[in-house]
């Protein structure tokens, strides 16, 4: 194998690994949008809080990492419920712009609160996970772990959505919310469960991202915009579209970064996004309507 082939393969694999995490990120946001019809602008800030949760539990209070992860997932899930009950539910009948402004306000609130409480230092778990050497490729163990956990998380959500009554109602409500009463479904309850699920996914994402990245009050800016772009690229609220878009985006970033600098990977990805918005404005897997 030539040296370029090895780099290419390594970039492809890293793209897939990144894609898994991006897919997990977009699933939580898509779920909330598809079901409640509200965009959590502050979604990435929930992840930021989850990352801080991991940092404090593991590095400061020395809670075992597995337990810390569970606490973190449940905790951010509860934050999702609080966000819904306190901010979203009173605005459900309001104009979309007001909902956006409200969750946007929460974004600045959380960023500022984190700055005041935790300071602006970059913090990390201090974990040094080994790097896997496959023939001549180097694959980071933390990325493999993140990919595996993201896949497991998505499979669990898939099973929940397809095998349970509540999950079926979550899919149904995204297709026709007005007749849920006729099915005997209390939509408010489904909204709360969906918010818990969306928050829980943000919590899981936080546990995986904190393995690879430092946490600081503005870390949400690194994940938030790309998560929104992926959701829009896949078609907002379209779970399968978001999944595909995440891998397309990740490969563009990874392969673009191989041939030029890493930043060029992002430039490629965003140019692709802008072009696709003209070619397929309803998303990659647009439904024929």
């Amino acid at each position, binding site marked *: 194998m030539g040296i370029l082939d090895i780099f290419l393969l390594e970039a492809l694999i890293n793209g897939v690994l990144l894609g898994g995490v991006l897919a997990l990120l977009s699933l939580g946001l898509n779920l909330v949008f598809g079901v409640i019809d509200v965009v959590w602008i502050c979604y990435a800030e929930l992840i930021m809080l989850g990352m801080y949760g991991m940092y404090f539990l593991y590095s400061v209070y020395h809670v075992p990492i597995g337990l810390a992860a569970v606490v973190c997932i449940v905790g951010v899930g509860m934050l999702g419920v609080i966000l819904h009950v306190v901010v979203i539910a009173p605005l459900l009948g309001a104009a979309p712009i007001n909902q956006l402004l409200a969750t946007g306000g929460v974004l600045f609130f959380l960023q500022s609160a984190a700055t005041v409480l935790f300071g602006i230092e970059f913090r990390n778990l201090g974990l040094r996970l080994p790097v896997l050497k496959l023939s001549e490729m180097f694959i980071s163990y933390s990325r493999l772990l993140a990919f595996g956990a993201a896949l497991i998380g998505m499979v669990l959500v898939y099973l929940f959505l397809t095998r349970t*009554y509540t999950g*079926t*109602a979550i*899919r*149904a409500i995204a*297709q*026709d919310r*007005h*007749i*849920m*009463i*006729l*099915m*005997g*479904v*209390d*939509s408010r309850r489904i909204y709360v469960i969906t918010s818990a699920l969306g928050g829980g996914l943000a919590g899981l994402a936080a546990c995986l991202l904190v393995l690879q990245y430092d946490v600081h009050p503005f870390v949400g800016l690194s994940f938030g915009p790309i998560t929104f772009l992926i959701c829009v690229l896949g078609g907002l609220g379209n779970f399968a579209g978001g999944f595909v878009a995440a891998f397309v985006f990740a490969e563009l970033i990874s392969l673009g970064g191989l041939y030029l600098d890493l930043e060029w990977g992002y430039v490629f990805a965003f140019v692709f996004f802008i072009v696709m918005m003209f070619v397929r404005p309803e998303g990659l897997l647009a*439904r024929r309507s």
Partner: protein
Amino acid sequence: MLELRSVCAGYGGFQALFDVSLEVRRGEAVGVIGPNGAGKTTLMRVISGLIRPTTGSIAMEGADLLATPAHRIVGLGIAHVPESRRLFPRMTVEDNLKMGGFLPSARAKYRERLDVVYGLFPRLRERSRQLAGTMSGGEQQMCAIGRALMSDPKLLLLDEPSAGLAPVIVEQLFDLVKRIRAGGLNVLIVEQNVQQVLRVVDRAYLLKAGSIRAAGTAAELLASETIREAYLGV
């Protein structure tokens, strides 16, 4: 069984129902006929809780529907097949039926209800894995009725079930309503297809511009001059 008294209802500033009183007795099939825009669909929505009346009362077997949270009304035995079917188009037939049986009381007998529905509509069993939105209009209507039957209701509300269907399918549909009735289910059916609906119901009401203008047995209405002139064109 079902009793509406002096119900007024509307949307925002627009009033669609004026002082409507109507009754479905045990063992009956009742029709509501009337022209487009008469308030027939509003009447159905008011019963199933999709909209709330401004005044009046609605009771189902003595239970006050207006004091019941809207999503609990189906639990009292009222299943509504809405206008234009309103299936979940990107879910399979079986998932649609599962949603019809969402109530905890219905979940316990899911298999049993599924057998009843598949017995009535063998076509749905063949199509159980198909996405509901990809089926023909007649099949979708079957699926919508099947979904409503999954909750094991006592009263079935059918809103314009024949709309948009081919004449042959409409015949089958009304045969089916007869069969459902024979199974002991009460039916309240809203239709523009007056001639057909009067063949399957015991009594009917004429609703026009939001109020009841006439009521009587199917035979009486068929014989009535106003109805014959206005709707049957004979």
